[in-house]
């Protein structure tokens, strides 16, 4: 009997990666079954179940990505990541989840109990609610909202409110300072995010995510390179990922605004961060890389990939590549300081995004009657010129800063000599 149980246990252990990925695939499958109406359901029940599974899809990224992050970071640092819990360490995220689930939740005395408890719930809800408008195929979407991008921006702003609530109610001056800094970063980076979102909307003529994917006859990263750069950097800052993670850097300010949180509330913040990261990478793919379609291939082959069963695989693989880019940037770049971060935003990204909107608007309107190829090439050339101009401006500013530092250094070399002993 014992041998049999050991055999079964060993088999389950070996099959754990399959079980984890299989569970994720099953959730997507059930979502597809409900949304694509492969079985008949009354419409209210269908909507409720679709909402449930869309929010559940939002809770899945943490399972995969906290493991993936630690493995990828480990490999970049020339070490193996977690490999103890489960084969390849695949259930490390779940082990961490169980740990956080069973830890005691200490509420500091003097904390505002209502806001202290509401803040993680608000942050979690904002992160999960975004998944209702992200399409996995042409019809496999929670709801095809006609103002989906505004809804996404709004949900990103709710994060700032939750952060301030968490920091304020903790009765801890470091949490409060961390919350101030975090909110100033989050609101500052919403401006280039929103301005960079304007350009795909201009080219596509709609704010709905499905509309944006369907309008991309050529993927928008070609005519809108600067917008891609702006959107990606702003997403890095909005999700507080490195190099913009001064707020949660343990060496800087303990844990920033969630210093006083422990147990499941901390796990909810963690969940919300990974869900937000995956949503941001899916948005990058939808806006700039053709979403669930293969636009460049569809120019040659006359098949709309969005309506085949390949569509979810296409969009998820593209989003995984973008998530890998998030992790790669985290493991490579050093952190930047808060004032450098804010200066980068207000003095570089916001002017660049304003210039980008002006240039794309004028060029797209001038060329709107010419062919797709000409429009793409002219916009690409304009984007490259803008990037070159931005590069030159940065180099000039860097040179000026270096000269200023040299002047202040040379002023000190007339220091008196050290007196010798004799």
């Amino acid at each position, binding site marked *: 009997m014992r041998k049999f149980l050991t055999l079964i246990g060993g088999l389950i252990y070996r099959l754990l990666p399959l079980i984890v990925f299989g569970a994720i695939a099953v959730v997507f499958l059930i979502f597809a079954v409900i949304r694509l109406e492969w079985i008949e359901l009354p419409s209210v029940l269908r909507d409720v179940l*679709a*909402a*449930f599974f869309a*929010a559940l899809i939002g*809770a899945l990224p943490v399972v995969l990505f906290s493991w993936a992050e630690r493995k990828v970071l480990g490999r970049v640092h020339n070490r193996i990541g977690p490999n103890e819990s489960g084969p390849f360490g695949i259930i490390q995220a779940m082990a961490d989840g169980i740990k956080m*689930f*069973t830890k*005691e*939740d*200490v*509420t*500091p*005395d003097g904390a505002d109990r209502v806001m202290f408890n509401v803040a*993680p*719930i608000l942050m*979690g*809800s904002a992160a*999960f*609610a975004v998944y*209702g408008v992200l399409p996995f195929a042409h019809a496999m979407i929670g*709801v095809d*909202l*006609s103002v989906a991008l*505004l809804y996404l921006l709004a949900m990103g702003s709710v994060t700032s409110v939750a952060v301030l609530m968490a920091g304020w109610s*903790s*009765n*801890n*001056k*470091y949490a*409060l300072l961390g919350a101030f800094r975090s909110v*100033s970063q989050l*609101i*500052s980076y919403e*401006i280039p995010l929103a*301005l960079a979102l*304007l350009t795909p*909307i*201009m080219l596509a003529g*709609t*704010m709905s995510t499905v509309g944006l994917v369907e309008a991309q006859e050529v993927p928008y990263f070609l005519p809108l390179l600067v917008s891609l750069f702006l959107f990606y950097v702003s997403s890095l800052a909005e999700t507080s990922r490195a190099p913009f993670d001064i707020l949660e850097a343990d060496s800087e300010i*303990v844990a920033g605004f969630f210093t*006083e949180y422990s147990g*499941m*509330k901390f*796990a*909810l913040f963690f969940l919300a961060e990974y869900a937000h990261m995956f949503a941001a990478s899916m948005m990058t793919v939808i806006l700039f890389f053709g979403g669930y379609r293969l636009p460049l291939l569809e120019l040659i082959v006359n098949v709309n990939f969005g309506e085949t069963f390949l569509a979810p695989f296409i969009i998820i693989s593209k989003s995984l590549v973008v998530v890998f880019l998030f992790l790669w940037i985290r493991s490579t770049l050093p952190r930047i300081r808060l*004032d450098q971060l*804010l*200066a980068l935003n*207000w003095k570089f990204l*916001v*002017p660049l995004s*304003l210039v980008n*909107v*002006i240039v794309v*608007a*004028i060029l*797209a*309107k*001038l060329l709107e009657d010419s062919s797709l190829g000409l429009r793409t090439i002219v916009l690409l050339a304009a984007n490259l010129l803008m990037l070159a101009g931005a590069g030159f401006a940065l180099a000039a500013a860097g040179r000026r800063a270096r000269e200023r530092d040299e002047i202040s250094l040379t002023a000190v070399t007339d220091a008196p000599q050290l007196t010798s002993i004799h």
Partner: protein
Amino acid sequence: MPNEFGFIGLILAMSVFFSLVALVAAWIFRPKKPGRIKASTYECGMETVGTSWVQFKVQYYIYALIFVIFDVEVVFLFPVAVAFNQLALYMVLEMVLFIIILAGALLYVWRKGVLEWV
């Protein structure tokens, strides 16, 4: 259109429900042993000094103010972007003029030294 937002209401309710279920389940399973020292505020291992609601640095307020200006500008630009395909060139140039005026505001704020983190 109202039909679409019904689903948004549903998914918001579901997200709140998920977070609540997670917290309630954790409340059932976790140990509850409050102590005076455990519940004291964290200040890098020392006793706290002074009140925790410290003075608000005014530079944050200035960044928030500039954010509000540009956010309102972006909100005004969204309808122009959605209706872009039906606009004539002079309408686009009016939008560009609007952006240039606000870029002038950014330049003014920059040169006045308001964006420095002092």
